[in-house]
């Protein structure tokens, strides 16, 4: 059962370049009947950058948030950004796993009169909160505008699938695909659903980054996706903002809009595109949104089994 209110850590990205995510999160939360209460005076998680420079301050930076959340009395912290999620989750986990690390981190925190006992705050990603706490059955009853005819590629990115998957699998999770089906949309096969978007690579070694972006967009487009749906502002930024640069490098012209999962969820809940920050993306999402049909698409005919063909391995439910 969903709570009334969750302690919320938005992360820096949602404050500037990913406003769209922030507004769609807030409006979807409201529509689903829970509050996201922003924790007081949170700081940046350090992204992937700080760990490269200096390990202990990096952990301390993250742990300040955990300690403050714990002081607020939070036993859960909901995070919409995959990078923030990973850093917070990993710090909590590793502090529990490695007492030496916990000791040093707490020694540093003590300089700010803080202390964090690992395990106090359960770090959760927003997508997992919505899917597990509300659940597919309940969500299905809230859908007012099913996304019939819309073909979506569920892009999980790395950091919620790895190192510890919050879903079913680190390699090929299917939970979000099921969400799309609940929303009335079709989930397209997408081999690169957990392939990395390149992170900061677009900044520091553009060609490496663009190649990764291009692979993802290509694979989604070739599987007929109208849009790629992400759960992470970094993934959205890379795939969206650099899509044309990647096109240029590989001489292609993919135009696959990149949406946040709360944006498509919001649409299905009947919210207006403008309330969901749609329009802030570089690759225009409106052509895709306009494809949404009033009526469900006809059920694809079950292909008759070829007499000669060998059976596929039986998958358990």
């Amino acid at each position, binding site marked *: 059962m969903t709570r009334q209110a969750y302690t919320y850590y938005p992360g820096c990205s949602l404050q500037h370049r990913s406003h769209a995510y922030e507004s769609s999160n807030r409006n979807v939360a409201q529509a689903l009947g829970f509050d996201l209460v922003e924790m007081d005076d949170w700081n940046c998680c350090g992204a992937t950058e700080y760990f490269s420079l200096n390990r202990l301050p990096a952990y301390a930076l993250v742990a300040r948030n955990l300690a403050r959340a714990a002081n607020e009395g939070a036993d859960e912290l909901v995070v919409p950004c995959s990078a923030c999620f990973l850093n917070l989750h990993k710090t909590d986990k590793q502090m529990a796993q490695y007492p030496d690390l916990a000791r040093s981190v707490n020694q540093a925190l003590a300089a700010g009169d803080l202390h964090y006992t690992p395990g106090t705050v359960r770090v959760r990603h927003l997508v997992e909160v919505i899917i597990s706490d509300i659940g597919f059955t309940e969500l299905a009853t809230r859908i007012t505008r099913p996304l019939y005819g819309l073909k979506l590629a569920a892009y999980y990115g790395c950091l919620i699938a790895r190192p510890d998957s919050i879903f079913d*699998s*680190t*390699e*090929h999770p299917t939970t979000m695909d099921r969400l799309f089906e609940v929303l009335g949309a079709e989930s397209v096969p997408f*081999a*690169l659903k957990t392939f990395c978007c390149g992170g900061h690579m677009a900044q520091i070694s553009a060609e490496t980054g663009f190649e990764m972006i291009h*692979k993802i967009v290509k*694979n989604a487009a070739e599987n007929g996706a109208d849009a790629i749906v992400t759960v992470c502002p970094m993934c959205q930024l890379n795939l969206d903002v650099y899509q044309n640069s990647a096109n240029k490098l590989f001489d292609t012209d993919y135009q696959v809009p990149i949406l946040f999962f709360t944006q498509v969820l919001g649409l299905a809940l009947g919210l207006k595109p403008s309330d969901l920050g749609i329009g802030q993306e570089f690759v225009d999402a409106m052509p895709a949104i306009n494809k949404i049909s009033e009526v469900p698409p006809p059920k694809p005919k079950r292909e008759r089994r*070829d*007499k*000669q*063909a*060998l*059976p*596929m*391995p*039986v*998958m358990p439910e």
Partner: protein
Amino acid sequence: MSDKRVGVYVCHCGHNIAGTVDVEHVAEWAWGLPNVAVSRDCQFMCASLGQDMIEEDIREHGLTHIVVASCSPHMHEKTFRGACERAGLNPYLFEMANIREHASWVHPHDKDGATDKAKALVSAAVHRVLQQQPLEPLQVDIRPETLVVGGGIAGIQAALEIADAGFPVYLVEREPSIGGHMAQFDKTFPTLDCAACILTPKMFDAGAHPNITLLTYSEVEQVDGYVGNFTVRVRRKARHVDESLCTGCGTCWEKCPKKVIDTVFEAGMGYRTAIYRPFPQAVPKYPVIDTENCTYYQTGKCKICEKFCPTEAIRFDMEDEYVDLEVGNIVLATGYDIFDARRIPQYGYGRLANVFTSLEFERLTNAAGPTEGKVVLRDGVTEPRSVAIIHCVGSRDKNTNEYCSAICCMSSLKFDHLVMEKTGAQVYNFYIDMRPIHKGYEEFYHRILDEGTQFIRGRVAEITDAAHSPEEEGKLIVIAEDTLIGRQRRVPVDMVILAAGLEPRADAQGVAHMFGVGCGDSGFFTERHPKLDPVATMTEGVYIAGACQGPKDIPDSVAQGAAAAARILGVIFRKQVALEPIRASIDESRCSGCRICNTMCPYNAISFIEELSVSRVNPALCKGCGTCVAACPSQIITGAHFTFEQIMAEIDGILVDVHTAPPEHTAVEAV
């Protein structure tokens, strides 16, 4: 206590102990322990010189108790007990202090610490041995019948060996036919002889042997008793076919309209009918009705098989039967399961059509298989022009199974040959290390190298259908680092074969529990000793053979089956076996009948005697674990050789140098 005379012997074990522990000092110090009449150190206690010394001292110095401080009791307890016995001393008046494995070898850089510990262990043994009582081993008679569980090649071999020696064997198999995994294979490495050609005669022999009672389509449900006298309850699942009438003519399965995917024998690659015989050479030849899929059992209509059966052998009303077998010994040869390749999702098995497991490929290439031996893609027609074989799938991987599955290198090489022979396709092997370790295996590897297979040293990272270049379109792309050149490679192929590892049977834990054997970390049954006793188990009278003990190939399975049989035959010929007298007993005159112990015994050795209101232990069933001894709140259950007094004495002895003296008087502040 004064008439007790303890002899203490501290072993140097060459340099093994003496290199770290000050052996002479320990022996000297031990003179000061209670009742010690002799204390010596010796180069090698286990050598005849050492043993003779014990015997002489017992005779000359009237020693009544012996302590040897040397290696682990699992190593030489028997040796020294023998020495005591030869000198006329009851072997249970001997105790061992393990100052090698538990002291010298683990504290090489702390000589003082190791010496102190050795002293503590010697003291513990001396204190303990003074409490020890003479015990007599329990002699039990051995029934000549043997139960073999599992009708694969290991079980068949064991059954035949024992039956040929003239003793009765019950061979229980859960599937409708014996044969096991070997019956599914086409060729066997490294000689490439046909599996059926070498297996079928053995299956036939087992089926026709006058000393072998075949119980197929049957499962063991309960095991009671102990070595020599097991009672085993077997459930004979209803075949729904009267074996006395059936001729195995095949009319029923030819007429049966219901087709289902055969996930057992055909590994999901082919179909069978609802009434079926798993394969043509099946032993016994009779079919069974699969009631879960039979139309009659689903809808109440059909009965076509009954209509066409020329001998009226179909019995829809047949029910499961139970038979109770009395056997003296048991061989577990329950085999293995193949690793479920879906657990490595990046390899795409179950998602990408042309990714096959090794067992699927065995069926594909088998002349009697679903494609009649044609190597084709999942569409059933297209021959692959390039094939990748991925080694170590679900093996050598801490995320799945850490162990090496032992057979995959060789079966992959066999596949290499079969693919090339049948299709001429280019074959790529992705491997971490090649381990062709038995006779003729390395030669086979060279032969396959000669045949032109490519070997890429690198564990495959993933298999994908996401093409990045035109030549990858429509193919499966195998992505791996070629570690020999240090570069990432993408190899597009038509077909991928996953050399899936071997795993313990899914129900191995339950079976282990039923038969009282252990499972190791990997889940395979644990042998009594990994080197010196590889087919016996911790439970007397229960032996293991074949892949249930660990991954192994056909020759090793056959060898183990025969070895288990030899062990059992030895016991049968002896007619009696001596059991360790480590048993619990209840002092009934003092038992209050609280019944706390009643639920403790995993072997149901404790019963409550209502009329006397006391509990009683059946010594033949008791295995001496001592859990009832610990549980008894009145402390009136005695665990022989691990009595309360013995262990308490051992605790006091082991802390002999730290016994806290009575506390000194301390000043107390005024109140």
